[in-house]
């Protein structure tokens, strides 16, 4: 059974069909790329999968369960986490606090026990703290744990965003342009990094990327969108040689 499956996923904004009948299959442990020219509907597709938008037609099925139209926070609880195209860190909070938030959903609805600081609550806080520190260490961010998140250099901010997403214990990690703003050296490091976390945390990864070196380098399979329509899918070599894809990016003479 596929981990994630979209079936005829469509969304219309008034007269504009931003994504038209998208079928995708993502299997466990794969790294899938979603590419296409700007405005092709890539982020919009992500938004439908993560519940930010409700599709006009079509379904999203995760681990056999229909999650179409569910609220974002519920989808996160089921095991899908994401990063954002324009980094959305919690600006005024520290690095550690940014990651701690991910644990909040595990506390349940017990405001009173939180206020009174019951032993059970304190245990959960400690667990959350330890988990978060572990993650920060693994991603090389533990030395800046008390820094305000936006004071970090850009590369570290991106890493923090990924750390934050990982803290929700996802099965599927969705990355929106993780290599944006990186030079070729940094992009190569990112590639290694993504492979590592996929292996270490037993993740499945779906990513939007424009850096072709990254996409072709680590993706097992690639989907190509143009004007909201899937125009190709396959392995990196298949995609590189696909006429339609070349036309979409370079235009037709």
């Amino acid at each position, binding site marked *: 059974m596929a981990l994630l499956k979209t079936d005829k996923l469509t969304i219309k904004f008034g007269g504009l069909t931003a994504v038209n009948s998208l079928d995708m299959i993502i299997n466990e442990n794969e790294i899938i790329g979603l590419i296409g020219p700007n405005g092709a509907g890539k982020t919009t597709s992500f938004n439908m999968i*993560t519940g*930010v938008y409700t599709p006009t037609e079509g379904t999203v099925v995760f681990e056999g369960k229909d999650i179409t139209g569910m*609220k*974002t*926070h519920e989808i*996160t*609880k089921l095991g899908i*986490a*994401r990063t*954002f195209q324009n980094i*959305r*860190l*919690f*600006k*005024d*909070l520290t690095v550690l*606090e940014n990651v*701690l*938030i*991910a*644990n*909040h*959903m595990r*506390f349940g*609805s017990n*405001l009173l026990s*939180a*206020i*009174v*600081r019951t032993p059970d*609550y*304190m245990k*959960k*806080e400690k667990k*959350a703290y330890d988990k978060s520190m572990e993650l920060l260490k693994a991603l090389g961010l533990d030395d800046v744990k008390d820094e305000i998140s936006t004071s970090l250099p850009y590369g570290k901010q991106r890493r923090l965003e990924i750390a*934050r*997403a990982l*803290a*929700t214990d996802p099965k599927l990690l969705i990355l929106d342009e993780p290599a944006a703003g990186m030079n070729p050296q940094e992009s190569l490091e990112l590639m290694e990094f993504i492979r590592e976390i996929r292996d270490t945390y037993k993740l499945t990864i779906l990513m939007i990327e424009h850096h072709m070196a990254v996409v072709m380098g680590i993706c097992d399979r690639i989907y190509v969108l143009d004007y909201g329509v899937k125009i190709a899918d396959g392995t990196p070599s298949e995609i590189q040689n696909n006429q339609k894809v070349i036309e979409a990016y370079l235009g037709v003479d």
Partner: protein
Amino acid sequence: MKKSKVIQSLISIGLVIVILVVLNNFLTSFQARIFNLCGIYIILALSLNLINGFVGLFSLGHSGFMAVGAYTSALLTMPKEMKEMNFFLEPIAPWLLNIELPFPVALLIGGLLAALVGALVAAPVLRLNDDYLAIATLGFSEIIRVIFTNTQSMTNGALGLKGLNAIGISGKSAEGYWWIWGIVILTVVFMVLLINSTYGRAFKAIREDEIAAEAMGVNLFKHKMMAFVIGSFFAGIGGSLLGHLMGTIDPLLFRYLLTFNIVLIVVLGGIGSITGSVISAIVVTIAMEALRVLDGTMRFGSLVINGVPGTRMVVFSALLMIVILFYQRGLMGTKEFSWDWFKKLSFKSKNAKIAKRM
């Protein structure tokens, strides 16, 4: 929480109590009244800061919740004879006439009712964006006020209620001091515990970036509602205490001018800082009283200057404008008081001494 922090907190509460006892013995009754007002405004500022400062919802509906609290506790504690005196235009609704509950119970009911109204207001209004939220909450607050002005048999309408019981059980005004400040301490402790808990972090995350917070598994609606309900509960408590302190309430008291005063306090103190709200509430309340002189006649020895009524509010409005234009983060920004400051101070002076020797 580390043991040292618990001890530090207990020491601070102890210190506060000592200060309260000392002040109790030295303040004149006029000064005590102002000081009590400071306490009430601390409660009100904290309740507003929770919603506006920590979660980032720009709510302007606070005076409505205060009105609910005030009227509830007033009507539930007022003895039958006083009610009959008040409701001379139209008799009070029969079921209200004979109810007379002890102050603490009425206070609590007032807070709970305010919280309920808060929930009812929040439910439809929370999904609106910033500006609409402000106007919608303001709208609800005005609707509440207009309802209170027109339900003659329950609230005595525009005439308002006079002769509210003094705060407390004994009926003696000195008791009010301890009730108010006791509740202040409870409120501050509650807020500190809340903000430093995982829920506090969730609130701040919502303020910083809703969409990212949701992606982290935070249920936006539930948490916004939570903050709103808690905030309105304390607004109701504050409103009740205010009413009983002043002894008289009427719908005009709960115009949005009142909300604005609290917004002023919160902004000056720093949106998102508990310490800031506390300090600002005390300073602003005292200053408001002190500046009353500007409205009346001022005597400097043989020199007499006639103040113009309204100057006081001009000064405060101007102050707010200056703060918002030049010191947007207010006094404390989002920082809090912490014992660490003292450590930093001694660290600095130690370094200074070492530097001098070299």
